[in-house]
């Protein structure tokens, strides 16, 4: 059982530079061959200011782990849900400050027994403009 006193814990920010090699590796890993992710000219030809990152690239901009000390058994952990809202795509050259917060801790009774439910909200803020570029909400389930 996860201690509810972890609720609201917020990580120290991490500043990520959106790098072209990282975007390229991510696009290749998901099997997306769209040239806008690999080639400046293709991105500009598509009307973009530069190379964009695929929509779920924010997952790669990892915050500091707010789950430290929670004693989670990784074999029993399942990713249940994930949502994102986006202000705009990230572009190569962006600098993003990423913070995670434990948004909810609860338990759920299902067919296979009781599970802990952990919701972590991750916010990415543009270092230059100060605008929130994405908010992610991840729900993980831990079997007991």
């Amino acid at each position, binding site marked *: 059982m996860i201690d509810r006193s972890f609720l609201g814990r917020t990580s120290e920010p991490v500043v990520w530079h959106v790098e072209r090699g*990282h975007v390229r*590796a*991510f696009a*290749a*890993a*998901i*099997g*997306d061959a*769209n040239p*806008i992710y690999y080639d400046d000219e293709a991105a500009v030809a*598509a009307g*973009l200011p530069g190379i*964009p990152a*695929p*929509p*779920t690239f924010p*997952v*790669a901009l*990892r915050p500091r782990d707010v789950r430290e000390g929670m004693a989670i058994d*990784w*074999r*029993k*952990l*399942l*990713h*249940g*849900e*994930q*949502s*994102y*809202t*986006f202000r*705009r*795509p990230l572009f190569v050259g962006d600098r993003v400050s990423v913070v995670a917060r434990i948004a909810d801790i609860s338990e759920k009774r299902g067919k296979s027994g009781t599970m802990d439910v952990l919701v972590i909200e991750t916010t990415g803020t543009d270092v230059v403009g100060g605008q929130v570029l994405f908010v992610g909400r991840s729900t993980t389930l831990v079997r007991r």
Partner: protein
Amino acid sequence: MKAPKLSVGQEIPPLVKRPIDRTQLVRYAGASGDFNRIHFDEPFAREAGHPSVIAHGMLAAAFFGQLLCDWVGPTSVRRLSVRFKSITYPGDVVTCRGQILELRNENEHRAVELRVWCEKQDGTVTAEGNATVVIR
């Protein structure tokens, strides 16, 4: 990119991915920074009760991103919400689909609400969700 005439209930062009393999899972682990061993360490995955390593749920989420970007371009996706329903293993072939639920006019934009889902070769739904895209 301009989408053609849209109507509620319409399905968008599906995205068929090539079979998931272990190399892809290792590449995705590296690119995304998710180093949970269940995605690349066979004995660890078996100990957790799986027949083999399992795909990252977020890989399916990424496929939804590609599905939407292929359809309306990379700057249009405003929201993506995904529920992971069943596990994908190496060798599985997944197809992502989307269907228009609602169309709204917002200022100069048109907002499109979609249902999206990802299914395996045997029809099992591995992930499903909702998305909002805006089209000029």
